[in-house]
Every structure is written in structure tokens, then in C-alpha cells.
């Protein structure tokens, strides 16, 4: 009985207007980044640039020195990929053991993981920083990767465990009967079946690590290794109202995430709606 009527069409138009007004900041972001230094100061913020000018992007991408944007992109990629790899490997192995075995210690471990998800991270930051500093894990990518694996493992284990519980044991039993070792059964049979879980873990962890500012600021503070958000913060701090350049940095930081988002938006949205419910 609910039909698509003229009223529904009106609602659709209204929702579109609201959405486009809501996304106006992103429009401002793009047009401003394409203006010349002169135009930023003289034209209205909503006006289109007279001609598309990529000089701000060129200047940002050719920046050098301690907080050079290209180097920080490389660092961010290394840290994000390293953290995802560790979280997928350790998270899936641990969740598999916890979900498939039913011993007291696996139950206890599962509760330890659940509480760690809820436990706020702030209080641990100072001791972690001091600990990392004393063993030389501050100011380098390896320390950041290990830190992120530690911080996000509970989330990874939890997500994998709920996927494993929904998977029948028949596949790995068949593999073992055919002569596979437990290791082979896991890596050749079970893990490939877990690709939806791996996708969710990679997306959630990747977003958190790539976008993080707080932890990078503390654990990489003052070192040669900077991630993109920290380099952006430092770079912008040195630019007074050069909004075309600031926005060029901002857009560069958004492109990888948005590219992934467009490519797999359903999985992003499902990952957030389902994954974070835990």
C-alpha cells in the first residue's frame, strides 16, 4: 500500500537538496584547492576557479624536508599495511583457536578480549610511550606497527571469532582427512573462506590507522618518520591562510581512502554497521 507518489518524489527532491547543502564543505574544499594563490584571496569561496590550477598540488607534492608530504604518505602506507597484515595474521590465528576449542582458557581469553575492546585507551598511552621509548620503538615505523597491532587486536580477534562461529567445521575436517596438517588446513582452507572477515578487519583497521593523528603525534613526535596526518598538521601550521595549499594537502590525504570507499562502499558501510556493534 505504500506507493511511490508525488509526495514521495517531493521527499526525494528535498532529501537531495539537504544532502547537497550538507556536502557543500567538500565542494569548497575542491574548488579552493584548484585556485591560484591570488584567486584564493580575491574570489568568493563558492566561486569556481577561472581556470583549473594544479600548482598547489605540485607544490605540496614536491615539498621536501622533515615533514615532506610524499615521505609521510610512504610512511603512512607502510604503517597501515604492516598493521593490517599483523592484525589479519594474529587476529585470525587467535580467533580460530578461541572459537574452535572449548576450554576454560579459551573462554577466559575471549572475555579478556571483550573487556579490552571496551577499556578506554587513554590511560595506557603514557606507560606505552615510556615503554616504547625505552626499547627504541618510538619515532619509527616498526614501533607504530607493533603499537597498532596491540591496540586493535581485540577488535580483530572479536570480528574473526564471530565469523568463525558461523563457519561449519566440515571444511577443515575434510582437509585433515585428506592429509593436511592443522597449519595447512588453516591457511589453505579456512582462511580463504574468511575473506569477508578479513575484508572487514582490513577496512576498519585501515581506516583507524590511516586517519589517526593522536598516536602518531605522540609516538612519532619530533622524529624523521611522520605519518600523513602529523605532516599535514605541521605543514598547515606553517601556512597562514594559504588555503589552496592547505586544501591540496587535505585532498591528497583523502584520495586513498575515498578511492577505497568508492570501490567497496557496501563493505565499508556494512563493516561499520555490523563490525562496531560488538
Amino acid at each position, binding site marked *: 500500500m*505504500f506507493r511511490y507518489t508525488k509526495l514521495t518524489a517531493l521527499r526525494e527532491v528535498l532529501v537531495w537538496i539537504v544532502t547537497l547543502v550538507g556536502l557543500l564543505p567538500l565542494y569548497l574544499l575542491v574548488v579552493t584547492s584548484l585556485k591560484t594563490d591570488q584567486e584564493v584571496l580575491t574570489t568568493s569561496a563558492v566561486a569556481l576557479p577561472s581556470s583549473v590550477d594544479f600548482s598547489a598540488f605540485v607544490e605540496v607534492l614536491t615539498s621536501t624536508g622533515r615533514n615532506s608530504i610524499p615521505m609521510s604518505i610512504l610512511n603512512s602506507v607502510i604503517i597501515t599495511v604492516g598493521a593490517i597484515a599483523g592484525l589479519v595474521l594474529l587476529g585470525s*590465528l587467535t580467533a580460530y583457536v578461541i572459537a574452535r576449542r572449548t576450554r576454560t582458557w579459551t573462554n577466559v581469553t575471549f572475555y579478556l578480549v571483550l573487556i579490552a575492546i571496551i577499556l578506554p585507551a587513554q590511560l*595506557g598511552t603514557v606507560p606505552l610511550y615510556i615503554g616504547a621509548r625505552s626499547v627504541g620503538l618510538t619515532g619509527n615505523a616498526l614501533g607504530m606497527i607493533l603499537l597498532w*597491532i596491540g591496540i586493535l587486536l581485540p577488535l580483530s580477534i572479536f570480528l574473526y571469532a564471530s565469523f568463525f562461529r558461523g563457519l561449519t567445521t566440515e571444511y577443515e575436517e575434510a582437509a*585433515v582427512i585428506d592429509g593436511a596438517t592443522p597449519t595447512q588446513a588453516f591457511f589453505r582452507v579456512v582462511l580463504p573462506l574468511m575473506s569477508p572477515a578479513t575484508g572487514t578487519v582490513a577496512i576498519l583497521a585501515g581506516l583507524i590507522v590511516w586517519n589517526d593523528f593522536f598516536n602518531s603525534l605522540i609516538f612519532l613526535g619530533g622524529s624523521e618518520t611522520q605519518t600523513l596526518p602529523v605532516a599535514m598538521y605541521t605543514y598547515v601550521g606553517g601556512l597562514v591562510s594559504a588555503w589552496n595549499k592547505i586544501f591540496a594537502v587535505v585532498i591528497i590525504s583523502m584520495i586513498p581512502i575515498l578511492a577505497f570507499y568508492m570501490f567497496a562502499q557496501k563493505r565499508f558501510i556494512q563493516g561499520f554497521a555490523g563490525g562496531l556493534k560488538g
Partner: protein
Amino acid sequence: MTVTTQDSTRTITVPPAARNTPPPRPRGGRKPLIQFGHWWWALPAVAAVIGVHYVATLTGGFFAFTNWTGLGDWDFIGLANFERIFSDPQLLGSVWNTLFLAFGSVILTNVFGLLYALAINRMLKTRYILRTLLFMPVVLSPLAVAYVWKFIFQFDGPLNGFLGLIGLEEFQKVWLADPTWSIWAILITVVWQQTGFVMVIYLAGLASVPIEVEEAAALDGAGIWGRFRHVVVPAIRPSIAIATTLGIIQGLRIFDQILALTGGGPAGATETLATEVYKQAFSLGQFGFGSSLALVLTLIILVFAILQQYVTRDRDAGKA
């Protein structure tokens, strides 16, 4: 055999009394048909979780009662750090700002997110495109989003330009340097970015409302409000619990946006516990005092997370 193992793994979530499957094998009984991996596979992860989450948090809780500066000697000084926090108007202000941002963002994102989810939930032909567009800000870095809004809130920026255009010059302000309005600027930035996230949670909840039930209610004469109140709200109650709990926890930890927009200024008007922890511990090297601020923040987060769970659960039980 297969079925037994499968079901007994679920004992974690299903209470024994509610199980209708055979109890797990007695200890020392027949070995399972196959071995599921090796037990030591869990070892590195368990060590990491205990170290990074439990040991670090407990150590931080201990530091909170000391005057450690990261170097040299330290003394156990009892509650002195906390006395200092609660007698310093600046730090008390940061506690209020923390709560203001958390509750403000939870209320606004939930109202806007739910309205938007309801608006696009049924019938609209382009609802998937709209959902994708509105969710887009969620995946962006909070710092990058904050810079976009910093531009908008500039004195010669688009917001004041717009106010001038529609003849509201008297409302033009230096938004980010205004002691009263700068915190609202931060709130707007956060709400703009997080609304899409809340919307997605509500869309997932709304998908569980069968269209037949809504139609039946409409046939029985229920208006839009009546259908919302008696059909939709009971069905999305779990979504409300999730969206508000996650929102409070995230809202209490807002940091990036403040550092980018105001840096805590003007004159500390937008400091929160998160920015104070950073400044005291890492800019000033007051590890002990910074830890005590972090402990206050942690306790606030835990209290609200637990309270939130309790309130939503209690209401569920009352309705059932």
C-alpha cells in the same frame, strides 16, 4: 561429532540453561576428531593484548598517584593530582567541555541521523546513492575535515560571507576565537562528520521493521507519529543503544578537531580532558599529572558506557 563441537563453542554466548544441545565433552574424554590449529597460535596475541591493554592501563592508573616527570625520581603523592584538577577552574572547564562535546554530538548526530535514515529508508529510488554520499565524511580523517571547517569559520570565510549576504551582519563573528562560540564550531564539525555513521546504524535497525507491520498499522489508522512511536521505535531500540553508546565514547575522546580548529584556545575555552592529557603529559612532561587527567577521563568514559548499557537494557526489560 561435528555438530557437537560447533555448538559447544557457542557456550560463550548462550547460557548453559538455555542450550538444547548436548553438553561439551567431559574433560580427558575422547580426543576430538581433528585438532583445530595449535594452542600456541593464540600466544603472541594474548601477550600483546595483556601488555598493551591491561598492563599499560594499570601502570597508568598507578602513575596517576605520583608526581613523575618521566625522568629521575618520583614520589607517591596520593590524591594531590586530583585535588589540583578539581580546584583549577581551567581544568574543571575542560571537564565541562568534554561533557558538552560528548552529549552535544550524541544528541545532534542521533536526531539528524535518525531523521535522515527515516527519510531515505523506504521508497526513495536513489536511497543507496544518498546513503553512500552521506556516509562519505565518516571515512575521512577528522583532522582533514577539521581543516575544511576551519576555512568555513574564518573571519573572512564562507560562513560570515553567507551571513552578510542574507543581511545578518550582526551575527558575523571570529568564530574560532570567540570564547562562547568556538566550542560550538567544534561541535558542528564533529556532528557533520559523524551523522552518516549514526544514520547507517539506524538504517540497519530500520531494515528489521517488516513493511507489512507498518502497513497494517497505517491501515488501522495510525498516523506517521503513531507508527514511529509504536512500531519503529521498539524495533530500533537496539540501534539506539549502540548509536548512543558509541557516540558517547567517541564524543568524550574528541581530540584531533580541537587541535586543528582552536588548539584549545581562545584562552583555554575549548580545552577538553583529551587535549589536557596531551598537553600535560607530552608537551610539559608531567607524566604523573597527565595520567591523573587520563584516569578522570577513563572513569568518565567507563561510567557513561556502563550507565548507557544499564539504561537501555532496563528499558528493554520493562517493555518485554
